[in-house]
């Protein structure tokens, strides 16, 4: 493997059958013309064959039971928090807070302007943001203890 042949980088893909027809013919021709390349191709091929034939561990009988038990068990609070604090969930929640503030302002203005259908407005607001509200509930944001955990989340994450 002293001199690097440009075709060398294609050899593994060639053996794996991952080349286009054009590249395949190009590599085939190069192998036929260069004994060193042919030797490397043979070495790669025999190694790949041997590695792919290696036995792998079989899952134990207990694994299936453990997975099924885990499905029944509720997620830990930390897992739920981690899930909730992913950007894909956090961002909608921030948006929800902004919308809530906006609704409050509009409602206040509406009160000054005339009678309001507050319950209907609130219901529509809940319906529109049901997913996020469910997440808020899951994260347990009503509990002071949970809020304390959220505040300390970074240091908790760092704790092994």
């Amino acid at each position, binding site marked *: 493997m002293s001199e690097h042949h440009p075709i060398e*980088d294609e*050899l*593994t*893909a060639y053996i*794996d059958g*991952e080349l286009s027809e054009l590249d395949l013919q190009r590599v085939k021709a190069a192998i036929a013309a260069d004994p060193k390349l042919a030797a490397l191709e043979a*070495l*790669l091929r025999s*190694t*790949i064959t*041997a*590695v*792919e034939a*290696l*036995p*792998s*561990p*079989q*899952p*134990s009988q*207990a*694994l299936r039971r*453990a*997975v099924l038990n*885990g*499905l029944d068990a509720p*997620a830990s609070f930390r*897992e739920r928090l981690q*899930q909730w604090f992913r950007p*894909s969930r956090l961002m909608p929640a921030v948006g929800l807070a902004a919308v809530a503030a906006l609704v409050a302002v509009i409602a206040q203005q509406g009160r000054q302007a005339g009678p309001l259908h507050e319950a209907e407005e609130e219901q529509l607001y809940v319906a529109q943001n049901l997913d996020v509200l469910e997440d808020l509930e899951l994260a347990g944001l009503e509990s002071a203890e949970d809020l304390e955990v959220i505040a300390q989340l970074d240091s908790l994450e760092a704790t092994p």
Partner: protein
Amino acid sequence: MVRFAWRFVGSQGRAEELAQEIFLKLYRSAKSYRPSAKFKTFLFRVATNHCLNEVRRGDYQRMEPSKEEQHDTSEAVGQRPDDALEGKQLEAAVGKALHGMSERERAAFSMCRFEGMAYREIADALDASEAAVKSLIHRATLQVVKQVEVLRAGLSATGSEA
């Protein structure tokens, strides 16, 4: 999934725990799965991230299987003792090579060699181009070849001494 995780942590017990965690994670985040992505790709993206996070914690500096696991593995390789010995040593060489690989090389190599996934599927799972995957797998395979050559050289030296 156990097989895939095992290639990262080198211990069947921990690989089973990881597989369990991956399945539970999938189950609990089932809502985030979109049928536009092939499930196998989705699964292996979750699994790769989970296994890499586990390895990054630094508890798995040793990729070779334990003695007990080597014994279990060798029994399945062949009937003759010579075959078993060869399988055990090859497994050790693969373990060493895996340990020397980058995270993405290890993931791509495992998906290709042990899960039989096509380059396109691996590219999707790793969020990479097919050309990048081709390069990752080639480099990883060369590392295994190198370790196997070292193993063979060692065996030849031992043989000639005897």
